Structure formats: C-alpha cells, structure tokens
C-alpha cells in the first residue's frame, strides 16, 4: 500500500507535538486531584485554572465562562437542554435550529420535542446557508433558544453567526452555536460574534480526544446534567481530565496563534483539490464556494456510491470520508446533503476531503490523479451510469 494520506481531519486530527508535550507533565508529575486541599492537589488546580485562562483568551471569553466537558457532544447536550429547561421554567418551549446540524444537536432536539418542546428547523439553501432574517422571522414570544452551527461538518459552509447572534441579542433569545468545526480553523470570538453558548472539541484542532469546552456567558444560568462533586462550579461533576484539558489549551493556543498562515495553506491545498476534481464529468462541489472552511472539500460524483469509492481510495492510501452515512451503520444518504436539496441518487455518491496544515501539495496532486481513476472504474461497473450514458436516465448534476 502507498504511503497513507490522511484527509479526514474533520473526523479527527493527529495530536500535534505541542499537544502531546503539554499533556506529559500531568500523566505522572502533576497528578493531583484539583479538588484536594493539599499542595499536590493545589498544584494541579493552578494548572487547571491556567488552562481555563488560556482557553478563554483564545475565544475572547472570561475564564469563569469556560466549562470543561468530555467533548463537543456533551457540550451540545448540556447547552441545549440547559437553555431549553431555563426557557420552559418561564413558559417558553420553542427552539430554533437548522435542518443540517450535527446529530449531537439534532438528536437532543428530537428528545426535547418528545418532552413537549416545539422546534423550528430552518431550511438551509442549496449551499448550506441561512440568513439572519430567517432567524428573526422565526423568533416568537416563547422562543427559548436558537442553536445554529458555526460551520457545517460535512460541506464546510460557514454560517453568518455574528449577524444571527446580533438578531438573538436584540430579541433577547439565548444563542448557542456548535462551533466544533470552526474553533481553531477560522476566527471565533464569543464577544464579537454575539454568542451566548458555544461548544468545541479538542480533537478537531490537533488536541486530544475526550475533552472539550462549553462556553456559557456569565449572565446565563447553566444547568447541571452530570451530578456529583463540585467540579466546574458544580455544573459538571467528575474529576477533571487535567492532562487532556492542558493539552487542549496548548493545542488551541497553537491553532489560534497560527490561524492566518494555516488558513492560507489549507485554502491553497483545498483549491488544488476543488479545481482538479471538478474536472470529473458530472461532479459537483457541495457547500458554499466562498463561505467555506479553508480545509473542506465535499463533492458528489454521479452514478457511483460513496462507500465503494472510499474503500478503493483507502486501498490507494487515501483516507477520506463519505457524506454517505452508509459507512456508519445507516443506509440513508447524508441528512446534510439532502438538506442542501440534493436528490438521494446523487447524495449517495459523495466524498469529503478535510485537510490539515500538515497535508502537502504532493498529496493533493496524488489525490487529484487517483480519484478520477476510481470514479471511472466504479462508473464502468455501474448500471446507473450505463443508463445515464444511454440517456435512459437523466443526469441530475
């Protein structure tokens, strides 16, 4: 097998040397429990609070607004449930979101619907955007929460979060954003962006897995979902994952310090892929061309199915992902691609390539040379492609 080319950084990233080094002192040396009163514990506590300050400074937040969690999903769950129940206590049981959120958000909202909440799922347009006025029009007297992702994990579209936040601020509705794909990749500032609550995950920016952050603005009451000790001001019990937290803080600082250069590099590499792969006949770039994460490419190729494409690319050393949830146990095509209005037939044939600054131009050139061959081969054995070519079936893209 050829050398491995990892282009699935939206799924997870390799930990950076900085993140690994930042973790080491806490595995053996500074092993104390931050809740212990003795010196070993208090030493750990200092480090924990240092990490909190660092994370806060990277987000434009105050340290007391940072709550460490087990990751993005936990942060999403807690933020949404907390805001929903706070609203319900005042008779507000309406929530606004979009139809292409991550499942950590969508499934939480589905559960809340069963509990009697009403959710408006704003439809995104064909490039994955919504407008602030769509949000404004959907806000009602009884709206408890608006939760809209910062950038989409599959198609990379960046939403107008600052303007949506401004609408929510004006209407006095709590605004949460799942920023798992955005933080460390594009500029995010909770003050400038008018964000009340934000979720992030360390392993998306070269930090460790199993650790994340819920940012919750100081004037917003946060409810507890993991009961136990008084960690995280009683809002999230459990002895802190100090090694993970300190490693995350270092990874985030590193990502934010090098944001512009990393964005420029990823964009340059991304454009090689988009230009090269768009030459494949009956292919389509999904997501917005301009308002797009610098490292995201998502394409559909008509007449083939995504999983077989992925497996054959894997055999060539290219580790990518498919929008098709086929690989993850569901047979439905991606809800994100369907939300963008793609027909099922086309949505099945998707490929997501997500980059990191560690990728190289040589790797991009290899991908651009190999993907067309695999697409052509799969089309050669596809009865759907045969019908398309014979004109018995209409091309949709």
């Amino acid at each position, binding site marked *: 097998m050829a050398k491995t080319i990892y282009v699935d950084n939206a799924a997870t990233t390799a930990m950076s040397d900085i993140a690994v080094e930042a973790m080491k002192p806490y595995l053996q040396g500074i092993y104390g429990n931050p809740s212990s009163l003795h010196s070993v514990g208090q030493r750990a506590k200092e480090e924990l609070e240092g990490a909190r300050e660092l994370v806060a400074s990277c987000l434009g937040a105050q340290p007391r607004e940072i709550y460490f969690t087990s990751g993005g999903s936990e942060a999403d769950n807690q933020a949404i449930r907390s805001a929903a129940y706070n609203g319900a206590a005042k008779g507000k049981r309406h929530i606004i979101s979009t139809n292409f959120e991550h499942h950590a958000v969508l499934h939480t909202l589905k559960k809340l619907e069963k509990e009697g909440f009403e959710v408006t799922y704003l439809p995104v347009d064909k490039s994955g955007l919504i407008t602030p006025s769509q949000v404004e029009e959907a806000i009602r007297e009884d709206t408890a929460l608006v939760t809209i992702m910062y950038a989409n994990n599959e198609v990379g579209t960046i939403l107008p979060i600052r303007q949506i936040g401004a609408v929510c601020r004006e209407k006095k509705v709590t605004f949460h954003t799942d920023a798992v794909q955005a933080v460390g990749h594009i500029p995010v500032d909770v003050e400038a962006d008018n964000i009340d609550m934000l979720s992030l995950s360390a392993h998306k920016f070269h930090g460790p897995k199993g650790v994340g952050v819920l940012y919750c603005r100081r004037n917003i009451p946060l409810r507890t979902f993991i009961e136990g000790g008084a960690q995280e001001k009683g809002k999230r019990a459990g002895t802190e994952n100090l090694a993970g937290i300190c490693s995350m803080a270092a990874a985030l600082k590193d990502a934010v310090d090098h944001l512009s250069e990393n964005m420029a590099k990823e964009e340059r590499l991304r454009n090689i892929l988009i230009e090269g792969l768009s030459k494949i006949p009956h292919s389509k770039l999904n997501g917005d061309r301009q308002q797009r994460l610098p490292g995201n490419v998502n394409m559909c190729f008509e*007449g*083939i*199915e*995504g*999983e*077989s494409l992925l*497996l*054959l690319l894997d*055999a060539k050393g290219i580790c990518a992902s498919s929008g*098709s949830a*086929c*690989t993850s*146990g*569901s*047979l*439905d*095509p991606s809800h994100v691609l369907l939300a963008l209005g793609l*027909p*099922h*037939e086309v949505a*099945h044939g998707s490929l997501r390539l997500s980059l990191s600054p560690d990728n190289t131009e040589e790797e991009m050139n290899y991908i651009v040379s190999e993907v067309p061959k695999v697409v052509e081969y799969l089309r050669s*054995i*596809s*009865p*759907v*492609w*045969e019908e398309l070519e014979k004109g018995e*079936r209409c091309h949709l893209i």
Partner: protein
Amino acid sequence: MALYSEKVMDHFTNPRNVGKLDDADGIGEVGNARCGDIMKIYIKVNDGIITDVKFNTFGCGSAIASSSMATEMIKGKPISEALTLTNKAVAEALDGLPAHKMHCSVLAEEAIRAAIKDYYDKNGISYDPADFPEPSEHEEH
C-alpha cells in the same frame, strides 16, 4: 477491526464476473438508485445450465462483493440449483456481512431470480410463480 471480512474485500476489490453479456438469455435488475443499490445480472443458459454470468452493480462494497460471490456460486450450475441459492449462503460464503449490510446479499439472491425469470419469460418456459416472489421492497430507510 476491519469493516469487512477479507473475503468481502477480495470480492470487492477484485470482483469476479464483472461486466455485461450482450447476448444474454436473461437479465435481472433489482434495487433502486434512491436507496443506493442497483444490481443487474446477465445470464447465458444452455441446456438448463447457466454457462455464463456477468454483473453490473451500483452500490457499496458489500453490494459489489455480494454480486461477485453470487455470480461465482451459480456459474456452471443448473438453473434448478441456482434457484436454491439463498442470501444467507451468499453472506456465509463471504465469511459474513455486517448486520446492516445483509440486504446486499438479499439483492444478489433477488437479482439472480429476476434474471432466471426473465429467461423463462423470454423463452416461454412455464414455471411455478411461487419460485419468483416479487423482489422485496427495499426496506424502509
């Protein structure tokens, strides 16, 4: 753990009997593009024996592997034997399929039946309709 058995990967990456038969005696097509799987099987029949078989498949790795394995299993066999091929036998021959991919082996069984039925219909050969139930509606997704 790998997603698929080595057998599945072998039949997926080096599929047997892939292609078309321009002079096919029977053609069976099942599945639909909306659901992400279409299997088309071509058979050549001589004296009740399936002398040649080819397939074209749009679908995931296990759909392509199931087509490949199923065509291997009926090639050179009498039609009567091909009609006894079950999806379970195809899946077992592949050293198993993940639970949510079992429908791929069902499609392979149905595609073969559809090709044989097409052969019978084209040649005016009578058959027991019970042998050819309507292909199962692709399960609700």
